[in-house]
């Protein structure tokens, strides 16, 4: 049992959100460090604070933008927490918020910015392998067979899952189409003005079976930032606060066993993680008004939703219809900004921001009366993380 003392529920609020313009990969006119600064300044402006008062920094996925340099650049009065969540990919997006919140609750930080910046023109792309050379360790057992990038590695997981549970392609298509649908009302979305039809999805080229092009996230340039403070100060800022109700991170038993030997390999890695989330939040999947679920690949979203208890694997085909996933009337509106597929692949931090917008009532695809939002960070990696935000009424 998580005791009251050992819970984040309602103790921290997100009071500022900031983003740069989102670009296709390699197209940012600005270098990555400058993008990070721009997003942090935008979040400070949104919160209505002096950016020099941000005293702490938290990020994930080996972000290259060192808090000490950021603090020097921003003129930070006093640097306190500098936190990096282990693990690559977008798995740490919610954990970074949790780490920041834990630092606030335990007196190690007062105003924390959670941030992520990516400029893949300046640095290497995720979806392309470097040429030549040698590989050792786990990669020596994988790369010589032509398996390099996440699309291929995570195709292996979902191919097995589809086999075990009879998952149909229509369920994957509905996930992709929900993101594209919501992006059409979001002018920030890179795929705004580029709707996706069933025919386009069905005709799209294979990347790595069972994933077609539209099952796979974009790669983008940009930056995003969130500002967190203790709940007792939350009303001193410009916008309606979004309270952190729960965060959980981790992965299942021996998830990183080499050569794809995780016992529960065909999973999103949330099996033992999601129960911690619901316990801390004192809520269940039936209480969620709106879901942001990280789409590296559509199959990962499906498995994440199952492992969070939104439905059983055998119900996936029935639950995952486009109508069920759309604002305003769907059973569980999904990825309401367009998500990684159609808004921007900001390693999922754009999903945290969208969850805050929903609680504020400021989304471009607003769920009426949204009080509880769930944000599932990057699935299938290790460790993964997940969180719940809520309005004042949920406290």
């Amino acid at each position, binding site marked *: 049992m998580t005791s009251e003392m050992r819970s984040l529920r309602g103790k921290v609020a997100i009071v500022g959100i900031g983003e740069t313009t989102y670009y296709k990969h390699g197209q940012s006119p600005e270098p990555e460090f400058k993008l990070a600064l721009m997003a942090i300044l935008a979040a400070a402006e949104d919160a209505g604070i002096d950016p020099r008062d941000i005293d702490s920094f938290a990020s994930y996925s080996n972000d290259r933008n060192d808090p000490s340099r950021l603090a020097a650049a921003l003129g930070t009065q006093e640097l306190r927490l500098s936190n990096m969540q282990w693990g690559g990919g977008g798995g740490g997006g919610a954990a970074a918020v949790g780490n920041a919140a834990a630092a606030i609750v335990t007196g190690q930080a007062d105003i924390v910015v959670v941030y992520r910046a990516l400029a893949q023109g300046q640095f290497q792309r995720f979806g392309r*392998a470097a040429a030549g050379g*040698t590989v050792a360790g786990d990669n*020596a057992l994988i790369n*010589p067979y*032509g398996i390099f990038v996440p699309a291929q590695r995570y*195709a292996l997981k979902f191919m097995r899952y589809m086999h075990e549970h009879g998952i149909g392609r229509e369920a994957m298509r509905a996930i992709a189409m929900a993101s594209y649908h919501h992006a059409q009302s979001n002018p920030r979305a890179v795929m705004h003005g580029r709707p996706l039809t069933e025919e386009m999805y069905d005709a799209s080229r*294979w990347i790595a079976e069972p994933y077609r092009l539209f099952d796979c996230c974009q790669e983008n340039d940009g930056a995003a930032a969130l500002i967190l403070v203790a709940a007792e100060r939350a009303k001193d800022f410009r916008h309606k606060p979004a309270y952190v109700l729960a965060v959980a991170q981790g992965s299942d038993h021996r998830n990183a066993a080499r050569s*794809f*030997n995780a016992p529960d390999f065909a999973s999103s890695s949330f099996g033992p993680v999601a129960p911690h989330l619901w316990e801390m939040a004192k809520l269940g999947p039936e209480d969620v008004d709106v879901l942001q679920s990280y789409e590296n690949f559509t199959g990962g979203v499906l498995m994440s939703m199952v492992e969070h208890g939104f439905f059983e694997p055998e119900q996936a085909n029935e639950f995952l219809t486009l109508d069920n996933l759309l604002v305003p009337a769907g059973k569980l509106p999904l990825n309401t900004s367009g998500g990684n597929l159609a808004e921007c692949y900001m390693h999922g931090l754009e999903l945290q921001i969208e969850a805050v917008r929903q609680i504020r009532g400021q989304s471009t695809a607003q769920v009426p009366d949204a009080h509880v939002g769930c944000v599932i960070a990057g699935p299938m990696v290790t460790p993964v993380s997940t969180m719940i935000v809520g309005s004042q009424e949920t406290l």
Partner: protein
Amino acid sequence: MTYLPAGLPAPVTETDRLDLPYWEGTRQGVLKVQRCGACNTWQWGPEWLCHHCRSWDMRWVAVEGRGRIWTWTRCWHPVHPALRNHGPYIAVLVELPHAGNVRMLGNLLGDPRQEVTIGAPVVAVFEPHDDTAAPYTLVQWRIERSAI
């Protein structure tokens, strides 16, 4: 003739030599995985201690190169420069029922557009790569016709 074109990264033994017996074995046409000397647990990929009983007594055991397809993918998008204009290829994750169901990755030899069935029996094929600075041998798989 190798299944995939030349130019993909060459596997080398780890600097700590943890996996040296595996790569030495494949050069000789022998497939080796780890087995715990204390509790007999099979283990793959290699690690310094037994995940089941924490014994350091990990031994390298030759196993028969047979298994069944546990999952697979057919890759179409060329993510590496050496794969440009190559066309699709199949990777299979094979489980070895006679070695504690450990899994290992390889390519499925034959027509890259063939239908692939989870559970299909496969046999190991050793694929030497001799024309490199540090020659190595990969373990590939083909469908075991006699078992069908």
